[in-house]
């Protein structure tokens, strides 16, 4: 009796383990199921590989919501020649190994014409070779690592290379503040290191000096006082932070605690989030935020000139999703644009010739809600750079 029960439980466990081994995926929105396309006709499924669980889940949720809205809008406007597009969202947990598993699943699905993913250069670049070899266009909303486009012609970044953006940011800072001293505190990831090098080159090229740099492992520590004490000793005029919003908030608060009030704080796009302000309160006043990301808080939207297309999307997104906690932000904006660009290209160029599809995507000839962008001669994506500051605990556009 005991042996039979044990045997049954064991086989149940094996079945559960095997089914759990697969990656969680769910198709959402639209009418047709992913497997119902007949051979020879257009493909209808847009895949997404984003972190829906794990430490990065809020970014993945923004991406998914932005893309969902885009797919709904596109289908409402007629879809691909009358057929609805289906969005298939896969959870890669913000983990490189999981992203590769997801990629293998996506390339096996014949109805998928493009994939949007992932969050974070390290994760995207881990999965990219799988998509490149399978000839699947990969649109990455925020991957700014300079080596990403070199992985292949299927790679379409929707974010500029760090050297393009932060070289410009470094130059602008040197022009605005004169030839002064800058300290850089950066996270020890692909994004952090490339941003540091780009800012350093731009800043020093325009006359400034980078007096010290300090690195940290993101999400591992909350205590930045050793680094900030070392930085304070070199007496910088500007402190440039390359960090996610939680580490950035800790750094900002601790810099104030150590009495570094006369140092100008400058942050990168990842700090352009309401959550950052929730953590810092009014201690971030006067901080500069420079990059290609825009902020879409109510205060900024009232005085902005982002255009009616963007404003309408922001309004509808907030109506639909803001009750879940996270309002429209730059991540949702770029995900919206990525999805729109992919679907419009599929409509105009068809999905059977991937080279033509990629070329059509790169034309970026539709309205974009995240700001102007185009692919230059050398293949780099160029976007406008925005400057924001914080006043009275709220974001303000400069």
């Amino acid at each position, binding site marked *: 009796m005991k042996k039979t029960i044990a045997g049954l439980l064991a086989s149940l466990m094996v079945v559960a383990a095997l089914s759990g081994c697969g990656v969680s995926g769910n198709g959402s929105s639209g009418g047709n199921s992913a497997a119902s396309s007949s051979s020879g006709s257009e493909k209808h499924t847009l895949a997404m590989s984003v972190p829906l*669980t*794990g*430490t*990065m*889940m*809020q970014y993945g949720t923004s991406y998914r919501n932005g893309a969902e809205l885009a797919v709904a809008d596109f289908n409402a406007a007629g879809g691909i020649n009358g057929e609805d597009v289906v969005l298939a969202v896969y959870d890669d947990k913000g983990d490189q190994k999981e992203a590769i598993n997801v990629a293998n699943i996506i390339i096996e699905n014949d109805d998928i014409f493009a994939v949007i993913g992932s969050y974070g250069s390290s994760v995207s670049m881990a999965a990219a070779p799988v998509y490149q070899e399978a000839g699947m266009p990969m649109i990455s909303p925020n991957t700014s690592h300079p080596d990403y486009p070199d992985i292949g012609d299927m790679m379409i970044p929707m974010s500029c290379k760090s050297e393009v953006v932060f070289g410009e940011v470094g130059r602008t800072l040197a022009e605005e503040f004169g030839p002064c001293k800058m300290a850089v505190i950066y996270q*020890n990831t692909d994004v952090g290191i490339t941003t540091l090098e780009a800012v350093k080159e731009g800043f020093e090229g325009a006359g400034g000096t980078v007096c010290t740099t*300090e*690195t*940290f*492992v993101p*999400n*591992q*520590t*909350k*205590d930045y*006082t*050793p*680094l900030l*004490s*070392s930085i304070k*000793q070199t007496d910088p005029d500007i402190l440039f932070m390359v960090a996610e*919003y*939680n580490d950035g*908030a*800790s750094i900002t*608060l601790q810099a104030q*605690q*150590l*009495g570094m009030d006369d140092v100008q704080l400058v942050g990168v796009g990842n700090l352009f989030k309401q*959550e950052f302000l*929730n*953590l810092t*309160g009014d201690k971030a006043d006067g901080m500069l935020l420079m990059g290609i990301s825009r902020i879409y808080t109510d205060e900024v939207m009232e005085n902005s000139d982002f255009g009616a297309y963007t404003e309408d999307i922001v309004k509808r997104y907030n109506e639909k999703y803001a009750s879940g*906690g996270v309002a429209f932000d730059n991540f949702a904006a770029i995900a919206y644009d990525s999805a729109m660009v992919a679907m419009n290209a599929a409509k105009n160029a068809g999905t059977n010739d991937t080279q033509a599809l990629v070329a059509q995507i790169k034309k970026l000839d539709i309205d974009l809600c995240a700001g102007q962008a185009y692919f230059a001669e050398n293949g780099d994506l160029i976007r406008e750079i925005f400057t924001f500051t914080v006043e009275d605990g709220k974001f303000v556009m400069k």
Partner: protein
Amino acid sequence: MFLQQLINGITIGSTYALVAIGYSMVFGVLELINFANGSVYMLGAYITLMIYVNMLGNFWLSFALSLVLTGMVGYCIDRFGLRRLRSKNVPKVTGLITTLGISQVIEHGVRIFFGSETKAFPNMIDFGYVKVAGATIGSSQVIILCTSLVLMICVSLLVYKTKLGKAMLAVSQSSEASKLMGINVNGIISLTFILSSSLAAVAGTMVGMYYQNVDASMGFSVGMKTLASAVLGGVGVLPGAMVGGLLMGIFESLGASYVSSGYRDAISFAILIAVILVKPTGLFGHKQINKV
């Protein structure tokens, strides 16, 4: 700057000490490393925040409630996760893996229920700063240090001066003999878990106040470091855990400022390895002699 980093190190080290005491006590009575202690530390901070923000407006009441609730979670870990394993006489490693699983459940459960974004934590003990010999000492640091010291003294008094403490020491020497002496071994073990979880909750809340934010992954790295502190001081020895925690905090702070901030954790663990190579039972530990 040395003084500043020393003070920072002692502050954070005292919170490590509180969690390390938990590891040491549980290892003492059960010979089991309770990996869930790190997650309970994080859970304590989260429960305080959630009760304070969503239900009551009174922080100290929320803190007290959180201690009770976290203690209950600790009790449940033992009662439902580990007691049946003990009665079946399974190898010790099974219990260890169970606690590892529980820590993952707690961490991801918190993430699903409360969201994965970092949350702001109110600092109720911020009464200003004092400049002493070039270093800035905050009121939060002083209060954290004092609270940890008081708690450590209380735990030591409990373990070495009361009958209950004697029972705990007896169980950690031999649970068989303790049963023969009429000690309720299961009760003592549950009490140990409740105590270690409550201490971890205190540490978690204090760290939340100090850094003014909490997030679901803070338990994991602290769990590793405090386990290392307990080993450094000698597992099973209470004063060892306290000293180990303080030392770990100091090494981490000084290592981060004088060697490299990227390698702060590596430095702490390297020192641990060096100590263990020289004295395998830890600083205060003694060799287990199995007399036949």
